[in-house]
């Protein structure tokens, strides 16, 4: 860090980026803030309402339920995808055609448009003609994701694991491939166990990439919308209505701009705050 020279003219190099991102971020955000403190009865007439909407959203059972479901979903996703991703990365071939094949095939789900992911799993899980649904019912399970909340949750989580575990795999693999062979040779001479190698060599080397993995998976699973809406539409009932699904229902379905805007800001702030806290805690050791 200390090798960087002080040069305020560098602002000219960042100016285009700042202009473009500010255009897309600041103006819409100000619009949201605007709506969140006003009431409208149509005809483009707005009245200042202060924090009324924030108060209403924070005290509504509906918001709390959606937030609860969202937190549960994100917790399950992180608990499954991280260990699984690391385990797969550890078992991956280190070189040759096997490695290329693994990388290309594993990255596939990441490049499929999100609504296609939803549609694909929708078809895959249909109880009568989908491979997953038909298979589960043939094995004796009573499975129907459009009727049973349990099945809907199972399908939603299976879809997200299918969609995003590869991201963790790729990151963990990148961390692993940065470990010099000499480390492993030294460990072998010391007669270190497989677990000791993982605990004292591989895990510390993966710390930085895993920090990124947790951050990305937290943010993206907290913002999940398209895949879930195409798969279950938030149903059955409200069983899988996560935060962003509820938000779009209120904003574009009911056109309740005030409550929707207040909810948007609370939602954004939750993500920002949790990410910042996590990032600060995780990088505290690096600073000193």
């Amino acid at each position: 860090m200390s090798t960087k020279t002080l040069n305020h003219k560098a602002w000219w190099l960042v100016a285009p980026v700042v202009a473009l991102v500010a255009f897309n971020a600041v103006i819409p955000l100000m619009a949201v803030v605007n709506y969140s403190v006003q009431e409208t009865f149509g005809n483009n007439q707005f009245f200042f309402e202060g924090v009324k909407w924030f108060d209403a959203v924070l005290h509504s059972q509906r918001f709390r339920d959606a937030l609860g479901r969202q937190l549960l979903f994100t917790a399950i996703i992180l608990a499954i995808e991280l260990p699984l991703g690391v385990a797969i990365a550890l078992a991956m071939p280190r070189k040759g055609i096997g490695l290329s094949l693994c990388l290309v095939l594993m990255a596939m789900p990441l490049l499929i448009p999100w609504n296609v992911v939803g549609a694909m799993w929708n078809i895959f899980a249909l109880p009568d003609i989908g491979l997953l649904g038909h298979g589960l019912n043939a094995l004796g399970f009573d499975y129907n994701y459009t009727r049973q909340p349990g099945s809907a949750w199972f399908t939603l989580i299976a879809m997200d694991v299918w969609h995003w575990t590869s991201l963790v795999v790729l990151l963990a693999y990148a961390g692993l491939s940065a470990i010099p062979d000499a480390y492993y040779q030294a460990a072998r001479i010391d007669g270190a166990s497989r677990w000791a190698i993982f605990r004292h060599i591989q895990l510390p080397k993966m710390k930085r990439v895993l920090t990124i993995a947790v951050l990305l998976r937290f943010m993206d699973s907290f913002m999940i919308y398209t895949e879930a809406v195409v798969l279950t539409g938030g149903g059955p009932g409200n069983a899988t209505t996560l935060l962003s699904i509820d938000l779009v229902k209120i904003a574009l379905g009911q056109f309740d701009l005030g409550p929707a805007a207040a909810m948007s800001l609370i939602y954004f702030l939750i993500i920002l705050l949790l990410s910042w806290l996590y990032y600060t805690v995780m990088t505290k050791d690096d600073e000193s």
Partner: protein
Amino acid sequence: MKSRAITWLVPTIYIVFLMLPIYWLLNMSFKNTNEILGSFTLWPQTFTTENYRKIFTDPTWYNGYRNSLAYVLMNTVISVTVALPAAYAFSRYRFLGDKHLFFWLLSNRMAPPAVFALPFFQLYSAIGLFDTHVAVALAHCLFNIPLAVWILEGFMSGVPKELDETAFVDGYSFPRFFVRVFMPTIAAGIGVAAFFCFMFSWVELLLAKTLTSVVAKPIAATMTRTASTSGYELGLLAAAGALTIVPGAIVIYFVRNYIAKGFALGRV
């Protein structure tokens, strides 16, 4: 030898799990509607390419692909072009507010698109860009520019500063140095950044759908319309879905050796 078998087993099972839904989509896309709704078959009994033919001959379908590719390519070019000098500034200089700026850029990656959907619609309608490729390309800059800056900064920090200094001593001007010397050095990084911009613009639908209606409608939006209005044309839907996997697969193949690196070199 036992551990060797496990080494192959785990990735193989995982890849089979990844391929099953994709296989099922392909399976459906080659069936006719009667077979899909009439029975459960593991592979098409009456193999048909009718679904694909429909997509390639009906302009409402194939224009969807053209629209999607148009805004994705535009966005990739814009994002990488403006991110290059910015990433250079972050990797080489300290300047007023640099750290705050970097975090602010990344914080946009944390904004749920659902939050921005409505204001984006109003903003781009107000400046007369609604339903154009440019609108979607610009809107996707919100999350792609921070990502590109982040990745490129990681790659650039890996290049020793001596390269810059030697070039300036040799009498290179800054633009000439940047284009002739520096960019070729980080070519892999530019490739990775372009890959990620392509990827996130290609898979995003909420904003793309909000900002378009007819002329610039993305393929993904055409698919949702089919699902809701013209009944249950599963075969057609499956074929359209299968075709959206193709561009991604091609792009992955080209950057396969750098994908993993791309993530790891960036800093948060």
